[in-house]
């Protein structure tokens, strides 16, 4: 194995190691939907969803928009 080949293998290995260790945030929502069932008109109902940060970097909630 010549020097050029060794260098190429080393470079690829380095890229793979660096690439696999890049920290990434990840959001998990265990309960993604909720059915209120019957509710009266002209009132407010509410439900709490839990958001979990399960990646390996800090998760930032940038915005929540009504659907």
């Amino acid at each position, binding site marked *: 194995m010549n020097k050029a080949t060794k260098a190429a293998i080393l470079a690829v290995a380095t890229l793979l190691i660096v690439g696999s260790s890049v920290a*990434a*945030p*990840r*959001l998990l*929502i265990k309960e*993604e*939907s*909720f*059915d*209120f*069932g*019957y*509710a*009266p*008109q*002209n*009132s*407010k*109902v*509410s*439900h*709490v*969803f*839990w*958001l*979990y*940060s*399960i*990646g*390996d*970097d*800090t*998760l*930032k*909630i*940038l*915005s*929540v*928009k*009504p*659907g």
Partner: protein
Amino acid sequence: MEKTVIAVGDSTKLEIIFSTRQYKKTVKKSPRIKTNEGGPEKRVRISTTMTARPDSTYPVINTPYKVDMSQFTEKKVTRKKLEITNVSDEDLEISLVAWAEDYFDVKMPKSVRAGKTVEAEIVIHEDVIDKTFEKSLTFELSDEKHSRFTIPVKRTVRNVRAAGTRAAGGGGK
């Protein structure tokens, strides 16, 4: 939302508030959540079926169908009763599905026999006694459709000082 920056392994609450207004039938909403995760936005989904005549629902009728726990005088309002009348011909089990745990507890009976009425009770936490809020509770029945009902729970406090004093004093004689 309690916080928008969530450390690894941590979690936060996202409260979705839906105003039922004059909507009719079933309404579905899908709020979108954008994060620094990249990729497409994630969604949570809610659905609600509006009852134009909440005093004549089936298989149960809830009285009242929305609970007002407002307090405008020094008279302490910390608990309210709710009647659930089974208007069907089958005994029904009742499961409390969700409620605003940070604001109140719900004492819910486990079942209601056909044609009978049972009482549930909402008890406000002492630490939110001086707060104004609009929350709700949801329960599910054991009928074939697994019918769900959501009861709005509203509290307005105008005499905050009095409410706080009463709470601190325990409200007893």
